[in-house]
């Protein structure tokens, strides 16, 4: 019994609100209140509150002159840029990092950019896959503990480059050639995380025991097969094996009614993916995923998530703003001047990101709130779309990880390696590494000025 999912009704239920482009996000939260000490700073038994890490990823980058604040420093010393204003409601939890760049030369930016920003390594040249695990998986190994969902990947806009193949579709990889596509179906996410039978009864102990024996048998098959395989296939089978083990662990803790999370009859709030939505960005989809991620963190069934708002080179359909042109090909690439149309779309995306940040900030966690106790790394696939630039890469850290970061800060560097951010993150989460990244992405130091 290693899991710390609360199984009993908790005494405290907070109702939290945030606005999502007109849509009200209301998260009724059974937090771990009943299990905390009187100060709310740790569990009653003395363990510290869990650390959480998230990635908020969007497609098509930024417009650098509208993104980079003109002044740097802490508090009143820096003035937010136009494109950062949507996040100013969480300003005390907000750290802007500008001037970082991707050090890999050559390759396709929409692939190389995310690979550098999320894994510190190059994208494979031929197969166009990640060659190293992305930071969500690296940090999950450090902090997931025995949570049943060591990583969680959800998405909002599926819009992609028509006919451009599948390889720009994800921003998470658990290792080389191990893409993890986000789940876009909020109904499926709801059922997976909080699925409860309609009659309220959990699965019978007998059926759980059978599932465990079946998976034990399957595991033994995998172990026997492994011995016959080459190195690459061994690694692939190991991933499969590890996932079977996780499933077995979860089964071991199932049974009985679960009370943490949204109520069983609330599934209607979480819309299924629309098979053919012409790539439209839907505020309800964003809000639903925000709620589910917030519940997952708050119930401590997940500590590391990727919120993939859009894909690299996203062809977001921005009809909602009256934009009928292709946001990637015609607006990002081709709009002249200071790109007011592209800017309006980006502001819309950042306002959807704001919904996540505000909801986390409005959700109590111990004596503070979820955002304070987390860190959300925000980045994209490139900086300036019109030139496919990888300098001035957009990077934000939102949250303060329980006070480890100063917050309300803009740090400006001169062409530093973006891997320094990853180095900093890994060490903030207890990785204790002396280097991070490979090749041109390898660094041996981090960013100390953001630390409290």
């Amino acid at each position, binding site marked *: 019994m290693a899991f710390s999912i609360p199984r009993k009704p908790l005494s405290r239920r907070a109702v939290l609100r945030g606005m999502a482009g007109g849509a009200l996000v209301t998260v009724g939260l059974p937090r771990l209140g009943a299990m905390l000490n009187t100060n709310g700073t740790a569990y009653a038994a003395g363990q510290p509150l869990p650390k959480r890490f998230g990635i908020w990823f969007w497609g098509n980058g930024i417009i650098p002159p509208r993104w980079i604040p003109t002044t740097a420093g802490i508090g009143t010393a820096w003035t937010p840029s136009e494109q950062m204003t949507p996040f100013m409601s969480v300003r005390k939890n907000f750290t802007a990092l500008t001037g970082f760049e991707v050090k890999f*030369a*050559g*390759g*396709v*930016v929409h692939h*190389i950019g995310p690979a550098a920003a999320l894994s510190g390594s190059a994208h494979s040249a*031929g*197969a*166009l*896959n990640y060659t190293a695990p992305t930071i969500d998986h690296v940090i999950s190994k450090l902090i997931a503990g025995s949570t049943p969902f060591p990583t969680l990947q959800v998405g909002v806009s599926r819009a992609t480059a*028509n*006919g*451009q*193949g*599948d*390889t720009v579709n994800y921003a998470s990889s*658990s*290792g080389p*050639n191990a*893409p993890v*596509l986000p*789940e876009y179906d909020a109904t499926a996410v709801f059922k997976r995380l909080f699925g409860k039978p309609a009659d309220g009864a959990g699965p019978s102990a*007998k059926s759980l025991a*059978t599932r465990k*024996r*079946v998976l034990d*048998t*399957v595991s033994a*098959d995998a172990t*026997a*097969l492994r011995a016959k*395989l*080459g190195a690459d*296939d061994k*690694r692939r*089978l190991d*991933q*499969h094996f590890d*996932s*079977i083990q*996780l*499933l077995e662990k979860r089964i071991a803790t199932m049974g009985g009614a679960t009370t943490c999370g949204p109520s069983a009859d609330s599934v209607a709030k979480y819309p299924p993916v629309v*098979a053919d939505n*012409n*790539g439209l960005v839907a505020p309800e989809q964003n809000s639903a995923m925000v709620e589910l991620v917030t519940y997952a963190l708050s119930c401590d069934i997940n500590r590391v998530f990727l919120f993939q708002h859009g894909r690299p080179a996203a*062809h977001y*359909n921005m009809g909602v703003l009256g934009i*009928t*042109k*292709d*946001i990637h*090909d015609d607006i990002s*690439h*081709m709009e*002249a001047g200071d790109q007011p149309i592209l800017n309006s779309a980006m502001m819309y995306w950042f306002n959807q990101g704001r919904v996540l940040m505000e909801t986390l900030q409005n959700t109590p966690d111990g004596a503070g709130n979820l955002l304070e106790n987390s860190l959300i790394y925000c980045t994209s696939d490139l900086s300036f*779309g*019109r*030139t*496919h630039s*990888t300098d001035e890469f957009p990077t934000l850290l939102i949250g303060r990880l329980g006070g480890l970061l100063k917050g309300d800060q803009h740090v400006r560097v001169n062409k530093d390696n973006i891997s320094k951010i990853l180095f900093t993150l890994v060490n903030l989460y207890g990785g204790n590494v002396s280097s991070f990244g490979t090749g041109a992405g390898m660094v041996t130091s981090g960013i100390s000025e953001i630390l409290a």
Partner: protein
Amino acid sequence: MKNKWLPSSAGFAALLAIGVGCTGDIGPNAGGPPGSMPTPPGGGGAGGTTVDPMNIGDPAAGQLRRLNAAQFGRSLQDLLHGSAATPAVVEDFPANSGLKAIGASTNSVTQLGVEQYETAINAAVDAAFADPARRMAIVGCAPAAWDDACAQMFLQNFGTSAWRRPLAADELARYMKLGQDETAAGATFADATKAMASALLQSPNFLYRVELGSAPLAGKNFSHYTGYETATRLSFLFWSTTPDTQLLSAAKSGSLDAPAGIAKEAQRLLSSPRAVDGLDELIDDVMGLDAVFLMAKDPKVYPQLTPTLRQAMRTEVLKMFEDVALTRDGDMMEVFDTNKTFVNQELGKLYGITATGTDFTAVQHAAEQPRAGLLTTAAILTVQDKVYQTSPTRRGAFVRRVLTCDHIPDPPAGVNTNIDPPAGGAPISRKQLLSSHVKDASCAVCHTMMDPVGLAFENFDGMSVYRTKDENGLAIDPSGMMDGKSFAGARELGTLLRQSTKARDCLTRNVYRFAMGHVENSYDDAQINKLSASFAAGGQKFKTLVMNMISGDGFMNVLPTKN
């Protein structure tokens, strides 16, 4: 903005020096970018890849090939005697090097994927075992209590079908123990065998095709695929599902250890109506037809683009290939400029052809109009286009990457992709606009390959409706040049491709790569060269191509894996 794509001419020189050009200068083993199908057949694409016939290297090593979602669903249906399958929700995986068939042998399953397998398999097994007739067909006996002999027989029969090979002694023991443990925990015999079936299907031995070969041949460093592995390779290639009992019997008898026996079974599979499933998977994968369902289109510009029309667009392309490849066993290259196609009412309306109902019927495009062949189908044109208008560059890139196997890299980092709007604000044609790509040397190196080809299709709007003027009311000039040959429009371009050696070689390469599930090495290139020659000599027929392929060295030989 002076520079368009590259900061300086020095940068451009560096680009060429590292081999990212558009002239096919990336070697055959390099893999391609997304959406690029194969790498070029060497030396700018004309003719076959140069391979020293005395030193072609070794065959590729054996590999695990994960079943894709469609293969998974079809196999479950066959094994569990299901009727029309409700598609199981299981994780599918992205393409690798342009093909899902290669993604199958490179990508890893995720945590979510393993959960979905368990849920889908248990649902399918529950449904099958709830029906006494299906349960009897699966288990083969129905004793009142646990029965060792009956359970053994079930494992030998169903187990062999599920794993596409007999279980070894230790595996039989493991599964007998599962059944006995279930019985000890109070399960009926039916429930105990149900748990065994669930485990057999969640096993990596079902979810992956394990294709590692047998012991090396005498005096060689490579081996043949085993008879059971060959049965699996044939079945998934031709039927996109698990081998039937006849194939497994052929494997057991040893007849699949020699080319004649392989050819005999292949002929049977290829003659069956089920061969449509294998061909459809090939065409879906190579042509990227999945994108028909995902492509973003502005509903205000294209209100007629319904989900059923998207499906119809895909179906047309599949039927076009089914007709020439399987039904008529005709010249495959005909697809490039044939007047014959297949429409239902909704798709026919888009083309100005009268048809009724949702079923597809064969129709002929009038010879005097410009639409003909694969390249002017709604699916191929629309998928490459933008949300609200055509994209000649993408349309041209598709032809180059997928149909002639030219290498077209995506724009490199740090380039300005902005084309300045015309001075004075008066609209100009897409052809004039794109001419700025060609004026700039750094852009021209790739765009002269793509744009003129793509502009041939300007008579078809962003969802392929025929037009004589573009959206600005300007006249359209679809004439151009491809590889030194001129064409008047899409129809003539199609004919050029039908006659093109490069397109023929590329088709061979696509089929080979799909079948093998890995990026070709020099050994494979040698096979592809031979196959392309015999494909040409044999009237360019699909059946000839695949029959030659499956009895050739590339299909039979495998390098042992290094542990």
